[in-house]
């Protein structure tokens, strides 16, 4: 998937010379995960900028460049290190169009790897899933692709978006998941979910790396004739309300699964939509699965396993729901 990110950046930078990239190690090194590899060589110092090691400035300077007519991409090396830039994201980028009554705008993409897992070994500060913090904020769009094709298409859409977009790439997907990436121009609109697997008995709303774990769980139940629909939300703000409501009404049994911990998470919002809009169609309680309420994923594998929402836990959840 990391290649898809790189391709989208390169293709859009060729198409639009207002796009610049800035962040720690994005230049010669090409990013710690290689997402910007080759860009410095092709586009030079002025467009691919190795920033000082200071996150607030990466986002704040990008905002200024956006205000002055550029379309910056601010890369934060790990989502875990975004907090110093939160003031710039929440108080500034998200509010610029609104607070100026549409006089100014802030077309900015904030990219960051997120997420962990047993094999990521990122521990507490290189593996968090903080998307809910951003999903709470009007003025932001929050995107989490789960496939290489979507990474390219959604990032292309983000780079063309007139407003700030947070683009979070699950690092377990960078190399683990291969998939088709359409060549040439490929745009996937922000705010639309995708049916990753059709089904009729249960639906699992999910996003990011958890899509793949959900698909695995769904396959297992499929062998027993329980057909689980897996919906990849792709964007957690704005949520694809129409798809959520239509699917929940049609199927009647709803599970929401994500790697982030549950309280106040995206799953809570999806569950609330379903409860409010689909009450009469439900054949069971809306269920959620997510990380336990501990600060983040611990380092030791034995501890990390406790956190991780893999196919086994999702399968168990689906079985509980199926029993209703």
């Amino acid at each position, binding site marked *: 998937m990391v290649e898809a990110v790189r391709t989208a950046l390169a293709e859009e930078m060729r198409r639009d010379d207002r796009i610049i990239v800035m962040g720690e190690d994005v230049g010669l090194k090409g990013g710690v995960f290689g997402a910007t590899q080759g860009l410095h060589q092709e586009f030079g110092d002025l467009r691919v900028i190795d920033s000082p090691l200071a996150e607030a400035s990466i986002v704040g*300077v990008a905002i200024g*460049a956006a205000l002055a007519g550029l379309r910056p991409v601010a890369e934060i090396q790990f989502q875990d290190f975004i907090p110093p830039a939160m003031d710039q994201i929440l108080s500034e980028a998200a509010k610029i169009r609104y607070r100026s009554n549409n006089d100014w705008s802030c077309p900015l993409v904030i990219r960051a790897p997120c997420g962990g897992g047993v094999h990521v070994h990122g521990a507490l500060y290189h593996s968090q899933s903080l998307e809910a913090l951003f999903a709470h904020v009007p003025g932001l769009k929050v995107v989490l692709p789960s496939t290489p094709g979507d990474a390219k298409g959604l990032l292309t859409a983000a780079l063309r978006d007139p407003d700030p977009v947070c683009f979070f790439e699950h690092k377990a997907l960078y190399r683990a998941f291969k998939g088709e990436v359409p060549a040439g121009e490929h745009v996937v609109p922000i705010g639309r979910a995708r049916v990753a697997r059709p089904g009729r008995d249960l639906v699992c709303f999910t996003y990011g790396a958890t899509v793949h774990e959900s698909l695995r769980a769904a396959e297992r139940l499929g062998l027993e004739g329980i057909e689980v629909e897996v919906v990849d939300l792709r964007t957690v703000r704005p949520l694809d309300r129409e798809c959520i409501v239509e699917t929940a009404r049609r199927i009647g049994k709803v599970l929401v699964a994500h790697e982030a911990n549950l309280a106040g998470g995206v799953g809570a919002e999806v569950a609330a939509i379903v409860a409010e809009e689909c009450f009469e169609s439900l054949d069971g309680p809306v269920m959620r699965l997510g990380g336990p309420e501990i600060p983040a994923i611990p380092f030791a594998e034995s501890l990390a396993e406790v956190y991780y929402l893999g196919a086994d836990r999702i399968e168990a959840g689906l079985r509980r729901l199926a029993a209703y």
Partner: protein
Amino acid sequence: MAVTESAPPAALDLGPDTLLEMYRAMVLGRLLDERIIILNRQGRAPFAISGQGHEATQVGVGYALRRDYDWAVPYYRDLSLVLVMGMSPLDQLLAALGKAGDPNSGGRQMPAHYSSRAHNIVTGGSPVATQILHAVGVGLAFRYRGEDRVVVTACGEGGTSEGDWHEGLNWAAVHRLPVIFLVENNGFAISVPQARQMAVAHVTDRAAGYGLPGVCVDGGDVLAVHQVAVEAVARARRGEGPTLIEAHCVRLQSHSSDDDQRRYRAPDDLRDLRSHDPLDRFRVDLEAAGILSPERAAAVRADCLAEIDRAQQIADEAPAPDPATALHHVHQEG
């Protein structure tokens, strides 16, 4: 990278017309500021925050910029600066009264959150010093496009304690960007004196730490500020990078309409403030140079008051924002 202490000789060679214009700009800023405070005391403007005492600094810097070409990323005391850059008393009275036609924000933000795309004045929020980084990004865009524009950004000495301020100076110096960092040092961050804000005597003592020139200037001397700003603008335009300017100002009013500085400033200090009023200082200098007479000064004042009165009448009659519009412009529409 030496820190220059103080004021170059007063540059009265700007010519009488420009000097009088600058004087009028200072008077207009002062009288408009006073009017907004009056509207607040009358219960008509819910909030007021004053730039009184900072006029010489702002007009001195404003006159060093090329209007509608250079950019500003101001803070809440920069009323006189945004007037020099092309905004009007009406624009600010519409904001003070929260009217739909307020060009700063359409009645969405508190007053003194100056913004005008038409005049290259960047919208700002309320968190202190976040705007410093935006100015660096604006300078980066100028550099990228090969333009010789300059951007000035301002904050108080309290703002220099924020991390964003330090990150901004560092980035601009590393990339030699055309940014002027103006610190309007009035000695107080609301109630906290400079000695509790920093262990150095001057904000400009920090300039060497970032590798950019720092110039300390008497912010009550409009011509001294102007000269320093002209030099900083010229450096930036030549591609020689950013400058830190620290202008020492007096804060004649309390921090805001919700503050009372008598609670934390010594009575002697407060009595002494008026003797440092930059308007009086410039008037006396201009009179001594034979450029301004007491009659002419009175006429300037009357002219500014008339402009403000006319603007206030329009602002009074202007409609409030339609509640239906409160939901607009979160994202681009249509």
